[in-house]
């Protein structure tokens, strides 16, 4: 009995999967028949040349776009027709390619907004703002973890591009999601931040699943357990970084557009 349990525990657990995922805009199919399995405790990379449909796949998985075909399952539940905010509440949280912060709120407030809903402090219109202070401890923890302590009271709009991305990661982590979808988290980041954020992603992926779009292939090689290559909306190759990097078709697809 005990042995059986251990073996099921060690088996890779698929938390997010898509079958035959398709999105057509008129005659143009941005995503065609994509099958994807994201496993718990793994970092899964989605790579591919520009226009391959990576962000569209993200939008479909998080229900910001409605697929024209196929099914999506999140932790055993069919979410093909679930609205985006509900999907987020179920534990699938995304970041955006263009940094998504609340520019005229401070760094602290940005993180606190994310904490308000799980903290049960989002609908009270009769309470003073000071009531949000009980979220401060957790917010400061997150701010410190991503290295934004010195900018705590600065407006998000005043941060550099890279630091905004870091802040976005902090707000995403604030929700304690089961599955994280990160759309080019390292784009525009300084080398120092890339190190920090890679570390954080590796750390959070120990207990949850991460699916990320990333162009920085050295990051992919470093922290990703599994890589899916997308081209013109279709899956070109899948496997660990080494297998994929040696794939002839992948090399061809990337030639002239990206350098490993």
């Amino acid at each position: 009995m005990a042995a059986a349990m251990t073996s099921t525990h060690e088996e890779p657990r698929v938390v997010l999967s898509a079958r035959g995922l398709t999105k057509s805009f008129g005659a143009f199919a941005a995503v065609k028949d994509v099958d994807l399995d994201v496993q718990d405790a793994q970092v899964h990379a989605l790579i591919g040349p520009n226009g391959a449909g990576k962000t569209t796949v993200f939008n479909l998985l998080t229900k910001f776009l409605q697929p024209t075909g196929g099914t999506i399952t999140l932790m055993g539940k069919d979410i093909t027709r679930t609205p985006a905010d509900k999907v987020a509440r179920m534990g699938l949280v995304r970041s955006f390619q263009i940094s998504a912060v609340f520019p005229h709120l401070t760094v602290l407030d940005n993180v606190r907004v994310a904490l308000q809903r799980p903290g049960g402090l989002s609908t009270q219109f009769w309470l003073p703002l000071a009531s949000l202070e009980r979220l401060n401890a957790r917010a400061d923890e997150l701010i410190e973890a991503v290295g934004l302590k010195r900018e705590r009271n600065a407006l998000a709009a005043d941060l550099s591009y890279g630091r905004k991305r870091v802040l976005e990661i902090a707000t995403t982590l604030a929700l304690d999601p089961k599955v994280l979808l990160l759309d080019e988290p390292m784009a525009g980041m300084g080398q120092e931040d890339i190190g920090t954020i890679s570390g954080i992603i590796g750390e959070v992926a120990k207990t949850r699943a991460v699916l990320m779009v990333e162009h920085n292939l050295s990051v992919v090689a470093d922290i990703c357990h599994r890589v899916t290559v997308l081209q013109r909306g279709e899956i070109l190759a899948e496997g660990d970084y080494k297998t994929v990097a040696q794939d002839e078709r992948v090399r061809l697809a990337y030639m002239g557009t990206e350098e490993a």
Partner: protein
Amino acid sequence: MSEIIHAPAKPRTERAGTASRTFAAFLIIGLVLLIIAPAFFYPIFLMKLLCFALFACAFNLLLGYTGLLSFGHATFFGGAAYFTAHAVKEWGLSPELGVLVGVAGAAGLGLIVGFFAIRRQGIYFAMITLALSQMFFFFCLQASFTHGEDGIQSVPRGHLFGLIDLNSSTNMYYFVLAVFLIGMLVIWRFINSPFGMILKSIRENEQRAVSLGYSVARYKLGAFVMSAALAGLAGGVKALVFQFATLTDVAWQMSGEVILMTLLGGIGTLIGPIFGAGLVVTLENYLATSQFPVTIVTGVVFMVCVLLFRRGIIGEFYASRLGRKLGFEHRR
């Protein structure tokens, strides 16, 4: 890099301290002025001003703090005026209950209009609110309880809590002032609350708010109903002040006028709309007796404002050197 960012971070908290002190000083001066005002001005004029100021602030709750431009707020203002007038005159309710009937009615209307409107954004949102408010206008024109073109006339002011005779204009003025202050307090709390924080985040970045799991539509609807209810509070009290409720208050021109007041005063500032309403009401009042058409003057004032002070009177003041020295900050 982080030094550069760090630098303005500290003065911000210092400035917030100065701001709250300046704010407290202005608040006290404002209160004193409002209390002694009836000694210098015609009370009916002052009451009209307060009603419109509250109406504009209620409207600004939606435009300035949620980013939704409603073009049908006359429905809630004028609708509540009808409800209050009817409740007081036909059902014989006391003035405070009559006003509450107006508020409840306006909130109900807000729920219906908001339910349909929040599904769309920008100009479509504005058009849906306009269309629904035109429907309500024609309903008021036809319905029997509104008495069509005549409106509800000679509405009794009655006795507040059965004790204070509101037929005295001094008593009525202080009643209106109290309602105005309560309304402003509600708005202030609403904006500076956990709910208000979510509204702000929706205005800042709606997509991100969705991805954080907020059902944006519900928060918008909540703000819409709150704004409608407060507009109703202003409308209900206005019906008691003037002792009538007519089609003027539900017409689309009224929806336009409140937008004008808010823009003139400063979108997204708590007290801006008060000044905008003050300017428009004063112009209307003093030009009404002259030969010169009022609408041309307000039109010119509006154009000058849009061209010269985009942030509105108070918004520009906050952003000016003097305003910043006093610790204000214009944040949109």
